[in-house]
């Protein structure tokens, strides 16, 4: 019996001491290093304009006006709600999924004035995993360029150049996919107005 009591005591002390190490010392060390080395990242890559918080460069936002590039559909809450991150979790044969995507495709063709034979990039009509994806594919951006140019009264060439400037290639030339951060792109377009 005393053996068990001893074991309990050891386990209790071990739990408390290890908790101090891995739940106190360790995260505070990371906190110190992160705030010292990469303060902007560690605090959420927050975008500030004229003293007002406009969002984060990592977190997608809803843009619906014709003068903006539109993000991917989002299943986070009612759409791009950072408190409700997540995907639609609808299976490939879901009536709801196929029906919704059909509607989005019709809408996308209409607002961008596309012929019925133009294939729509998959990212433009599917919801992302996080619901907060800040990126769209280059194909998606190029199809939206004429609409944005028209709404802003600027040449398509100028808008295409803005897209090119915001196109990020694969990391180290290899990893991931080419992408465009539309939060940054839209903010830049507004700024150069």
């Amino acid at each position, binding site marked *: 019996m005393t053996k*068990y009591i001893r*074991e309990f005591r*050891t386990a209790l002390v*071990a*739990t408390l*001491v*290890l908790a101090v190490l*891995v*739940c106190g010392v360790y*995260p505070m060390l*990371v*906190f110190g290093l992160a*705030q010292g*080395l*990469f303060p902007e990242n*560690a605090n*959420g890559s*927050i975008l500030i304009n004229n003293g007002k918080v406009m*969002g*984060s460069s*990592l*977190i997608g*936002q*809803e843009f*619906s*006006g014709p003068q*903006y590039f539109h993000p*991917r559909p989002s299943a*986070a809450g009612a759409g*791009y709600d*950072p*408190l*409700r991150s*997540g*995907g*639609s*979790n609808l*299976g490939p*044969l*879901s009536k709801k999924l*196929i029906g919704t*995507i059909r509607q989005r*495709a019709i809408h996308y063709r209409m607002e961008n004035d596309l012929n*019925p034979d133009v294939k*729509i*990039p*998959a*990212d433009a009509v599917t919801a*992302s*995993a*996080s619901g*907060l*994806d800040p990126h769209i*594919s280059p194909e998606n951006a190029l199809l939206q360029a004429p609409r944005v140019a028209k709404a802003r009264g600027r040449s398509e060439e100028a808008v295409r150049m803005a897209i090119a400037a915001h196109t990020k290639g694969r990391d180290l030339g*290899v*990893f*991931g996919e080419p*992408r465009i951060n539309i939060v940054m792109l*839209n903010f830049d377009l*507004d700024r150069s107005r």
Partner: protein
Amino acid sequence: MSIFHSPFGWIQLVLFTGILLVLTKPMGVYLTRVLDPKGKTFLDPVLRPVEKLLYRIFGVNPESEQAWQGYTMSLLIFSLIGFVMTYGILRLQHLFPLNPQGLGPLSEHLAFNTAVSFTTNTNWQSYGGESTMSYLSQMVGLSFHNFASSAVGIAVVGALVRGIARHTAKTIGNFWVDIVRIHLYLLIPFCLVYAVFLTSQGVIQNFNPYVTARLVEPAAIETVKRDVPGEGIMERKVEEVSIPQGPVASQEAIKILGTNGGGFLNANSSHPFENPTPLSNFIQILSIFLIPAGLTYHLGRMVKDQGHGWTVLSTMFVLFLAAFLICWWAESAGNPRLHEIGIDPALGNMEGKEVRFGVFNSALYAVVTTVASCGAVNSMHDSFTPLGGMIPLMNIQLGEVIFGGVGAGLYGMLVFVVITVFIAGLMIGRTPEYLGKKIEAYDVKVSVLFLMVPVLTILGLTAWAAVSTWGTISLNNSGPHGMSEMLYAFSSGAGNNGSAFAGLNADTPWYNTLLACAMLLGRFFMIVPVLALAGNMVQKKRAAGGGVSFPVSGLMFASLLAGVILIVGALTFFPVLSLGPIVEHMLMLKSGSLF
């Protein structure tokens, strides 16, 4: 688009496997030093005094070792106390500091489920982190187990390997020494460097309240007004959003390295704050496999048969590669129902995937996280194509022995090794021997017990859910996909994986309680047989002269081992898989039906 037209996918695959294989040996050598109480590491000058101090505070004599019963007892008591602590914190989080959002306590069944989930290294999440957990709950209640449960897994495999390597002995190590050394020399220093790297990519680490941002364009959102019946849909303008913050990086590092998988935020590693860039993603995938791969080298070194270690690794590797290629192929091919309505097939199946990762990195993450019992996700498995989603499900059901969770993977694999040696012995009509030790009835009995626990748990509970209202009312999808959602949940629970077909609403008393039971069975009813096996192996004599044992390295053994794993898994789970993903795949190709 076909995987053959994706050169960058193949380059990334070659880089991934190449770097992993190069790191296996150094990691294995380091692990051997960590698991040897007298082993020397480069951190000794700083940490040796801390280690000695900890033994003194714990009241543990590092020189004395335990028999398997004592080792098991220490492990169970340590896990129990951690569980109680976490349950308490989750139920009382509103009374503790570091809760800037003023989040309330968790319900009894959710707190029970979550505490079990983290104690068992499962990290199944019936909750969304950003809307449920205070910073203290995350940092202490959950993160403690991210360290402790992975240390326990590594300790168990360390003990089993000692049991195999030693002969005519009684003890298999000292649990407290293993736990302390794994924390000090492996998990904490590795995670420290790793977490800082993650912040360099954009992962957050702060204690600020959530940031309120003004939207450029107030978004018009249609909401159903629930409190006024009959009011119906109304439009509402949203002008501000609230962006979650918190100490994410420190938790992210151990979540991945310790193959825990429980995300700080609901969307897990698909969330830009947890996994912001393809580079952070690549390192995450690599580090899920790092310790499990190194442990195979540790095995070879300890039993003085490096060929055996490499053979086990090769078997894992081939099975992993096969699973990945099928999943990648299925996701690249995409959903034909969408191609019919004018969606470009070039990007593959993008529902539930992030643009920065694309199909390749999503499929790779999904396979890596399920063969290793990690459970972190960077895409939503629920929205995978039928076959693409079946692969993660099958990986879990095969027992997560392909690399596997830290420790848990290799000890599961060694049980399969024992079974394989036994079957091979029967085939050639000789007493089966493993590395010079006779495999006897007791060893086979505990090994079969180990294999039966998850089978009975997964099939039994899924069957129960499928015929009950509590089971089907939580589904997000109907038809065969609904079946897959339930099957995935119980497989993930019993397999201590933690990933999900996340459409299933698991935060109900029934699911929370039964999944917690599945997790407990899948953890402790498997660890105890493993330690019993270690205790029995350690006392055996080693046959003199070697040479007579069945060779446990080389192509022949690797094929037998892979065959046993696949046959046990396939025979057990093929019938139920054919009711879920397989029939769904047929329907996708051959009929117009939707569900």
